């Protein structure tokens, strides 16, 4: 298996495919089951956000190596309306749509590193990393 790739995320079915790609990457770098589950769950939340709020986009995945340590980095990119108030968007229970408002804040708790870049009209990029 190659150590990186990209998949399109435009539909609900793509969210399932994004989860599967996240699982393959997680297994490839030897994440234990609980950490696999956390990564895949975060991927599911972020892929769904990209579809529902971002109007679709893509997920880049990459297996990282840092000395002996391995990890997975997933990056979700959309060209949607972007987020005006990032701090507010990262608050539990805050939602701009019909969700529960746990997608961003919950995903951040499930991973080791979380980066969010967004501005109104500039789309949104969220990158998460989980180390084995």
């Amino acid at each position, binding site marked *: 298996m190659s150590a990186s790739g990209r998949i399109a995320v435009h539909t*609900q*079915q793509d*969210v*399932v495919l994004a*989860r*599967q790609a996240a*699982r393959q990457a997680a297994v490839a770098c030897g994440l234990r*089951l*609980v950490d*696999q*589950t*956390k990564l*895949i*769950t975060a991927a*599911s*939340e972020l892929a*769904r956000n990209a579809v529902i709020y971002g109007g679709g986009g893509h997920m880049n995945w990459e297996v990282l190596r840092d000395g002996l340590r391995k990890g997975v980095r997933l990056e979700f990119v959309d060209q949607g309306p972007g987020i005006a108030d990032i701090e507010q968007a990262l608050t*539990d229970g805050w939602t701009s749509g019909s*969700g*529960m408002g*746990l*997608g961003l*804040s*919950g*995903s951040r*708790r*499930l991973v080791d590193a979380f980066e969010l870049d967004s501005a109104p009209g500039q789309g949104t990029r969220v990158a998460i990393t989980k180390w084995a």
Partner: protein
Amino acid sequence: MERIPILQMGDILLVTIQVDMHDQLALTLQDDLSERIRVTSARGVLIEISALDIVDSFIGRMIATISALAAVMDARTVVVGMQPAVAITLVELGLNLTGVSTALNVERGMRLLGQLSAEAE
């Protein structure tokens, strides 16, 4: 259209989720289940999720909605078979499934449903 099967056992409806659920499938299950509760006058719904690798906020919300919907239709819902890794992730995600009863396995879930409907009598 793809559907999750709903089995009837006496006055209990049994739903075993064995596929990687996409969102439309979850919504279809919600509709199907409410219709089956009406048609069968079921008193209990057992949702078996041991095959699910993840429960994200969408699936969690669907489970909570089914439970609330069934309660309004005079049926109790018990979710059984959640994998430990899924339970840990769910709690960390911040999803507390308020109002949803759970049991470790089908046998204990059936027993719990029996108790819940006896209490409701």
